[in-house]
């Protein structure tokens, strides 16, 4: 069975397990929360939850706000996932350059260049990078770019700087004998790294990488600065349209929490699968 099929099967099983284990809790929550909300409404007149929910419902369903949300979700996912992929590629390259011992001048220059890159992208806030990149560099270079594409690029470059440090730790955590053995059978440094050391390093840093992905997802909340539509801007729009802020912003927070919970569960699953492949069968 391929790893991919295996993963889907396991996800299905995990969801099934979750509902089997928690269905009582979920039912109780569904039965208890609405009455409590209504009770609060009744006691404290100024909250007026029911009315606010009604306004949000009108905005979201009747006025087709969900279409905007779907686009926002799509953009958030796109920016986070593609950004992470770009980040992993850039981070791996930088980390591999950084672990070479500086024996000659070319390697020393390469070290300085990637060092400056990391310092640049770690030293400035992501919002600043977005603003500078989109409103300064792109016009200077006379490039027309979709805001989402610009965000993907900047987020990729940014996470590359962070992942390079994570990856360097991962590479250093792999037994040096692995590289030695690969070199001893006649494979060049780059191939040995790519086929032997980096796969083992990725296994070691998977929890940290998952953390980085979660951070990335949450950081995408700032892409509204350059006019890209994401989850945050969707709810900002819904809220300011109706002058009702409470329900949209609460729903927004819950959506982020659910996304992060799903990612955390997936990372855990992948970790377990990778660990299993090397245990006794």
């Amino acid at each position, binding site marked *: 069975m391929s790893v991919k099929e295996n993963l889907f099967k396991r996800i299905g099983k995990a969801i099934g397990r979750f509902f089997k284990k928690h269905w009582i809790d979920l039912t109780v929550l569904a039965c208890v929360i609405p009455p409590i909300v209504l009770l609060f409404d009744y006691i404290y007149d100024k909250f007026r939850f029911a009315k606010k929910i009604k306004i949000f419902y009108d905005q979201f369903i009747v006025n087709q706000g969900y279409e905007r949300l779907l686009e926002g979700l799509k953009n958030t996912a796109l920016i986070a996932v593609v950004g992470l992929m770009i980040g992993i590629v850039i981070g791996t390259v930088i980390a591999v350059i950084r672990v070479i011992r500086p024996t000659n001048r070319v390697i020393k220059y390469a070290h300085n260049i990637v060092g400056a890159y990391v310092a640049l992208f770690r030293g400035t806030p992501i919002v600043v990078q977005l603003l500078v990149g989109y409103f300064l560099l792109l016009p200077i270079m006379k490039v027309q770019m979709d805001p989402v594409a610009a965000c993907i690029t900047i987020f990729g470059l940014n996470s590359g700087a962070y992942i390079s440090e994570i990856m360097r730790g991962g590479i250093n955590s792999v037994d040096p*004998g692995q590289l030695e053995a690969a070199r*001893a*059978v*006649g*494979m*060049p440094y780059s191939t040995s790294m790519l086929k*032997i050391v980096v796969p083992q390093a990725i296994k070691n840093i998977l929890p940290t990488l998952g953390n980085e992905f979660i951070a990335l997802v949450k950081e995408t909340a700032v892409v509204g600065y350059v006019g890209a539509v994401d989850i945050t801007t969707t709810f900002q729009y819904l809220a300011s349209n109706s002058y009702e802020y409470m329900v949209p912003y609460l729903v927004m927070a819950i959506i982020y929490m659910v996304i992060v919970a799903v990612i955390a569960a997936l990372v855990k699953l992948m970790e377990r699968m990778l660990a299993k492949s090397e245990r006794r069968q």
Partner: protein
Amino acid sequence: MKEGSNKKIGEPIISVRGLTKTYGKLDVLRGIDEDIREGEQVAIIGPSGSGKSTFLRCLNCMEDPTSGSIIFEGVDIADRRVNINTHREHIGMVFQQFNLFNNKKVIDNITLAPIYVGKRNLRRAKLKNALRTIANLFRKNKKELIPITKTKKEIVLEARERAMELLRRIGLEEKATVYPSTLSGGQKQRIAIVRALAMNPKVILFDEPTSALDPEMVGEVLDLMRALANEGMTMVIVTHEMGFAREAADRILFIDEGQIKEQGTPAEVFDNPKNPRLQEFLSKVL
């Protein structure tokens, strides 16, 4: 020379001349001249910290020598301009800590390097042929193209077949699809030896192959090494197993303080040591 074995010791395969190695201010090797001849088994003994492992690792340039030359098949591989990778293919190495690739199954551990080398050679031959075809358009006496006999698929299949054959030889064919972490130390080390053999090396370097093993697993590894020795494989073995060195080696080198202090046949070295440092060493370990 052992009785009953019909081996021939031939030309020098690795010639070491004036080899020195320093780490900072520490002189590990201070001028070693030595020939490893084809078909002979050389055991290197000596106290720890004497530089015997460093000497072995210099033979395939895992450690770059500080000065001196290492001539392998007529090429000085200590020269930095030489592409060391093409020469390392022909020098197998077995490590104390096995160093099997943890992320590869046993069979992939063995076939990784042969497949890599086969594909690379194929790529090179194709490139050369393409260039020659173009150059031949302008040549009067045409150069012949390099014959390409195997496809990529055949390279992979052949490497797998050879790997299975080697695994059968050591009786571990049912372990082909497991990961190295599921194996015992002795099994790991035998697979590491097989991994070196899969490249059809001219010489195999053993860096204390039994030092990290449980005592009861030492035997199976030594048996395999003995079998290789009887087939006439050229071997250089750094070892603390004096019994094995005496029985299987043609020649013993005693290294101390970065120099070869004494060498000779096992009988000469073990029964009649001349160097006082060797006498002291032997009195401790025998």
